[in-house]
């Protein structure tokens, strides 16, 4: 029988569950988010994780670097991310802080690889996100990253655009980050629905200026679409204003 432990998808309860499993020396076959259907041989186990209430203690014990890595893995869309984190922590309690140097262990190389991948995408999004100015001066952006990086980019824009009201919508996950000049809140799309986004008066002029700049700055004698696409993959183009028209042109 495969013992598959179920959690609600939150990071806190994932930590609670991991604490419980490690503490009691339980080896799960897999750990899955609620809604997992399972196969014929799966035995699904769902605990009352709130009761365990050990997430804070675990965060404290593991320290900044380890938490950073497992949190970033948690934000990824990797198929077996939870069980990778489980094995990473299992080995962490065996080897301690030297673990990150042991890239020959699969759970280590996978954790570091996925964490880096998520970090890289978040960094890219800090550059590729494009805001539109709405009628009431609110800045609005939408994007569709592979990984759940909305919180990471929100932290960035909280510092950068501290004196603006802004909204960032993740079209893939249907969640939206709202900043009120003090802090940001991440909500489900249904909880915050603007049916119409009316652009400010000079928005189109600015988009035009940017388009002019973008088209002018490339040197035609050095044209290199492959290099351009390596750095700025096509999947992001629909949300990058200077590229959104390119899709139809080149296809």
């Amino acid at each position, binding site marked *: 029988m495969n013992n598959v432990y179920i959690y609600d998808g939150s990071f806190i309860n994932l930590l609670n569950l991991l604490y419980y499993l490690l503490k009691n020396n339980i080896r799960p076959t897999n750990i899955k988010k609620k809604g997992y259907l399972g196969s014929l041989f799966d035995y699904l186990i769902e605990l009352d994780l709130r009761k365990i209430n050990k997430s804070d203690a675990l965060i404290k014990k593991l320290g900044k670097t380890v938490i950073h890595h497992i949190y970033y893995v948690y934000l990824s869309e990797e198929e077996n991310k939870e069980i990778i984190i489980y094995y990473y922590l299992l080995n962490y309690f065996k080897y301690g802080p*030297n673990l990150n*140097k*042991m*890239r*020959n262990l699969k759970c280590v*190389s996978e954790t570091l690889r996925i964490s880096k991948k998520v970090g890289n995408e978040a*960094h890219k999004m*800090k*550059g*590729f*996100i*494009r*805001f*539109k*100015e709405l009628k009431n001066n609110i*800045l609005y*952006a939408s994007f569709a990253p592979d990984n759940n990086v909305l919180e990471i980019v929100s932290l*960035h*824009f909280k*510092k*950068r*655009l*501290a*004196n*603006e009201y802004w909204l960032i919508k993740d079209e893939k996950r249907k969640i939206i980050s709202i900043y009120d000049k003090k802090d940001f809140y991440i909500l489900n799309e249904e909880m915050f629905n603007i049916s119409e986004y009316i652009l400010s008066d*000079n928005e189109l002029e*600015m988009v*035009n*200026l*940017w388009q*002019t*700049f*973008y088209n*002018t*700055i*490339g*040197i*035609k*004698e*050095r*044209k*290199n*679409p*492959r*290099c*351009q696409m*390596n*750095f*700025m993959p096509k999947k992001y183009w629909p949300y*990058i*204003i*200077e*590229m959104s028209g390119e899709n139809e042109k080149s296809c």
Partner: protein
Amino acid sequence: MNLNEKLQILADSAKYDASCSSSGSKRTSSLGNTHIAGICHSFASDGRCISLLKILLTNICIFDCKYCLNRRSNNIKRAIFTPEEICEITINFYRRNYIEGLFLSSGIINSPDYTMELLIKTVSLLRNKYHFGGYIHAKSIPGASDYLLKKLGSLVDRLSANIELPTENGLKLLAPNKDMHKVDHIMGYVRDNRSRNYVPAGQSTQMIIGATHETDLDIMTKSENMYNNYKLKRVFYSAYISVNKDALLPSLNIPPLKRENRLYQADWLLRYYNFKVSDLLDQDSPNFNILVDPKVSWSLKHLDEYPKEVTTCSYNELLKVPGIGITSAKRIIKSRSHFQLTFADLKKMGVVLKRANYFITCNGKYNINSELFNKKFIEANLVLEDRKENAEENMHQLRLFHE
């Protein structure tokens, strides 16, 4: 002339400047901040990163440098931005997250001091009226007074002055109004005054490649001197593109991009891999081998020192192995005391085995047939490898110029 036309003219005139980095500064303000690692916001059709709004304040210029699009004797459309216009575009672009900041350069209008004052006025408006905390890279104008240099440097993150050509003779020939000593003076001034509040992200410069007959040795020697004497952050290399026809200029159909690429690779070796120019080039071979990168070239010359044993050799030795970079060298050093390395582990750590294979052993094991350890075989394979990597790009370049 409307704003769109101006932007078109003044971005077009600014595009040959290679620098677009936005790293190395920590600044925060009510509007904007800088990111220590820099952020790329877009990539232009030539594959270069767009991080900063790269424009000239004006393309009017009293100089007549042969290679420059904006030279006095060229009959082109001229434009000039007002400081307010530049602020408007910068702030609006920045709020929409199009850019990381501003890269402001200028043709020389009236006099160096006059031009410099216009640059200062613009940047000062941005910082003081708009409280702009984003990245600003300004070009300083050679020949401007020191007090202006002081003022401008206190407002920006990076200041640069382009040396353009590696030797004084080259400069005299192509840029008779330019004086190398004036550029030296700026670099010296910035070096002596640099602090957290003065040019925090350091200074950089640029050289044009292939407009004169100077060798790679001339160019790299100049770079090395500037890195050592002026603590420059970066030297940029820009393959010469024939924008003007002139008897003194070569008429190149294709910009020497491969040469530019080799120079950048060598530049990295100087800054991060503890190489000296004298390791790489000498009077007998003053130019890089265009077929392989400079590190491979060096390793082939020193084949008698190879293969290196990765489990015991020093960090410095690891760095010199083709296919091993700074990150992978550090990872090897960190982990080899914790477990026994295998070739598969090396690969996981980011070592490019198809290059490194020829130059290393791992626990005494050579990964390929050891009878094949000879210069001709290795060189042929690495040349092939290099070509494969660049094939598509080259094909594209060729196609472009045959059209």
